[in-house]
């Protein structure tokens, strides 16, 4: 199965835990597309840098648009106002890391 890696910048006053970040995306995905749609996304959190407030998600390439829409629709995580901004999307983790470091 082809996959896509998405680098995300998290904006907000509070520092979120890995669990909060994953829950926020999963909740948004399930709200917009339902549990069936969310299950098709094959979403997982690959890494999360709490200091830089950056995360990398992996999803099925067929569900990329769904995941990007869900990320943009997030307004709250752990009761705090937040915004998730997609920085880059790539087909491999290696090239994503290179692109994000070069930004």
């Amino acid at each position, binding site marked *: 199965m082809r996959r896509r890696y998405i680098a995300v910048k998290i*904006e*907000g006053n509070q520092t979120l835990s890995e669990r909060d970040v994953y829950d926020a995306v999963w909740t948004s995905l399930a*709200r*917009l597309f339902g549990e069936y749609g969310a299950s098709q996304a094959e979403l997982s959190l690959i890494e999360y840098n709490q200091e830089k407030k950056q995360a990398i998600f992996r999803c099925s390439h067929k569900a990329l*648009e*769904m995941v*990007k*829409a869900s*990320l*943009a*629709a997030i*307004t709250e995580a752990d009761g705090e*106002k*937040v*915004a998730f*901004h*997609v920085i880059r999307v790539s087909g491999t983790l290696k090239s994503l890391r290179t692109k994000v470091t070069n930004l």
Partner: protein
Amino acid sequence: MKFFADLHLCPQPYNYAHVRGMVEKAAELGYKAAGITVSSRSTQEETQELKETCSSLGVDFVTRIDLAPKSSGELLRNLRVVRRKAEVIAVECFSKQVARQAAKDRRVDLISFPLASPKKRFFDVAEAELASGATASLEINMASLLKLQGFRRSVLLSSLRREVQTAKRARVPIVLSSGADEPILLRSAEDYCSLAYLFGLDHYDARKTFSENPKAIVEQNRRKLSPNFIAPGVYVVRRGKG
């Protein structure tokens, strides 16, 4: 880099710190132009202050006046007063009568509808044909999509999907704008394009709604508001001495 414009930032009126925060965020997210609502009674100094705030951050300031008339007569009266005061005139239509008048009036740039009440969304085929014959574009404020949840958001998405299809068929330009009243509600144009996927706009069309369509409106109105404009296609090239 691609030109992106957000024609509807809603900072607190004349709270310059708040305006600065919003414009800073817009610049960071890659917007080159920002439309900020001014009042029809704003002084030139107030507008100049906003312009300086934006230009210090490298963002082109676009003056915008929002009208929400109760009748078509009120709309016509308001348009007579404000048309030459702002680069973008947006009309929020709360009745069918106002929507029809706004769609056919060439002084109106953007028509929008109350997003939270589906019964007051009057953008149907007739409305689209009128707008297509004039110069009005359909504006969709994305902030409501972020603020609403559950049943109300699905109703909104359903209305938007229908309106987008109608606008596309009648070739009415669509303008997506943030409508954000705080920086945390702002998203990059690319992120908004992803959200537009929810109501059936493909990525190419969605990008146009943030770049080419708003740019065309602003450029056309700036030409019209220039002192060298006489009539469409007729401009002063050189003035005589004395």
